[in-house]
């Protein structure tokens, strides 16, 4: 064995060990952390990791920047919630119906939008997702329209007469989110090393060249979209049951679609770790901004005097400005780290190593 491959082997072993450790810590976390707020944040991070990773399979690997992923999120959320609330079908069956609904949605959207390329595809994906939102808004007898659906109770999950969970704390949602997130990461990793992954990337890099090498772009784009839609729908279902309430504004909005894209772009497009990093950063950031944690932190650190006009202004308004600050951060990342955080760090490490 050459020293070079030895080093690669060792690096692989180290990263495998740290991965196992990280997963172990995540599984044990609810035993030590009592704070429901931390668990809540973690569940949101898991949900965003799932949506970001799903989007990454289509946007990052295949290069099709869908800004309409709320459609699949909403398809899962609405199917699961309608079945649960009006048909009394437990969510652990409902989510699979949600997956089917999202797949049907994906095939409809794919057949329309994949005729277009580049920015035209992006615009079409927004438009078609909006059609879904408006439809759900108006199909009042099925979806309850703008009032949304509120679940009154979730049936307890038991197996062979033994109660597994009655869903009355955040912990079962935590584990469901963690398992789904690990599953989508595993699938991303597996896809990336398979024939599918090569074909997806070939289409991203140059669709015409890919076509000449025996790749049917339409079929492979639809495969990427289907994989992506399945997991986005799982995230949607999980979110719906966890929060217990959905309406078109929360699970089918353009804002949600944009947020899904942002996680991928800020974390690092086309990397497995990117959406994880993106979700782990953006969720606490957006929650923190919303609850005015930054202004409070500035005041507590003594940087800003709460009695001064500036301090009063920040305390009053910074919480409302969370979308603005979020937007500015996104612009900064896109300007200075076009490859996202993971790509930026990787490049910096490579630069140091080559020096």
């Amino acid at each position, binding site marked *: 064995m050459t020293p070079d491959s030895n080093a690669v082997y060792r690096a692989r072993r180290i990263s495998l060990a740290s991965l196992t450790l990280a997963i172990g810590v995540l599984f044990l976390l609810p035993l030590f952390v009592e704070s429901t707020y931390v668990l809540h944040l973690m569940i949101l991070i898991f949900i965003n990791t799932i949506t970001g990773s799903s989007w990454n399979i289509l946007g990052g690997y295949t290069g099709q920047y869908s800004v309409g992923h709320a459609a699949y999120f909403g398809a899962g959320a609405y199917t699961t919630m309608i079945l649960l609330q009006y048909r009394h079908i437990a969510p652990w069956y409902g989510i699979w119906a949600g997956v089917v609904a999202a797949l049907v949605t994906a095939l409809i959207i794919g057949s329309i939008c994949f005729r277009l390329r580049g920015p035209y595809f992006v615009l079409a994906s927004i438009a078609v997702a909006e059609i879904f939102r408006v439809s759900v808004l108006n199909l009042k007898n099925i979806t309850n329209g703008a009032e949304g659906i509120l679940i009154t109770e979730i049936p307890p999950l038991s197996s062979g007469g033994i109660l597994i969970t009655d869903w009355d704390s955040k912990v079962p949602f935590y584990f469901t989110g963690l398992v789904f997130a690990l599953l989508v990461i595993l699938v991303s990793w597996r896809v990336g090393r*398979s024939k599918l992954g090569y074909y997806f990337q070939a289409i991203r890099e140059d669709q015409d060249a890919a*076509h000449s*090498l*025996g*790749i049917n772009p339409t079929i492979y784009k639809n495969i990427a979209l289907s994989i992506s839609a399945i997991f986005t729908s799982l995230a949607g279902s999980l979110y719906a049951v966890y929060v217990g309430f959905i309406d078109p504004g929360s699970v089918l909005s353009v804002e949600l679609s944009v947020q899904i894209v942002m996680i991928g772009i800020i974390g690092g497009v086309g990397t497995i770790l990117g959406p994880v990093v993106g979700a782990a950063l953006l969720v606490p950031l957006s929650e923190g901004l919303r609850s005015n944690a930054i202004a409070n932190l500035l005041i507590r650190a003594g940087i800003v005097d709460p009695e001064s006009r500036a301090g009063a202004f920040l305390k009053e308004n910074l919480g409302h400005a969370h979308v603005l600050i979020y937007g500015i951060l996104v612009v900064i990342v896109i300007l200075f780290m076009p490859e996202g955080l993971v790509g930026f760090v990787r490049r910096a490490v490579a630069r140091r190593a080559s020096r």
Partner: protein
Amino acid sequence: MAILEIRHLSKYFGGLAANSDVSFEVPERSIVGLIGPNGAGKTTLFNCITGYEAPSKGEVVFQGRRLNGLKPDRVCRLGMVRTWQKVRPLRNLSVLDNVVVGALCRTNSVREAREIAHRQLAVVRLDQKASILAGALSIGDRKKLEMARALATRPKLLLLDEVMGGLNPAESEEIIQLILEIKNQGLTQIVIEHDMKAIMRLSDAVVVLNSGEKLAEGSPEEIVHDQRVIEAYLGAEP
């Protein structure tokens, strides 16, 4: 035996005839040179043959099978593949992975495709650069990569669109040797080229296009002495 037959092929873009009534045959294991002034319709003809454009009239028959309207991916799986005049490397993939994508046309195993790709890179002498990004290659290496990637799909007929364009004499010579080597392995090739010396050395037969029509067809010697060809390239004497 002709591996490819072009029968009365025409391609119109609106009122403009990019190809009109072009017919010729490509015998198996031969090299056919396709020449003509700029705008003669050479690349359009390639597009019609490989499925990027559907011919307006006429037929493309490959190994006895009518291809009209078949998409490029199907054409490639049948055994006909092209390279691009303006090279199209998959920039953010490594040189090796570019060729792996081609090799996956005939196998589902990534491991096997990597082996094929390594061998194919050795053929075009790019094996030393297997791990660098395709976007970082020089123009000469990009042309070689195009050829390796196309060859990895295991074609029976290879269509080369100006693989020597923009290369220096040493690089051109390397490509010429490569084309002759490929021919010896039993592959049929159609070569679009502007360099007449290269065409003379490579081609078993030459087809000349002018303003979308077939102007002449024959051995390289016949073509260089053909009065109509000389006029088309240099202009008629007053």
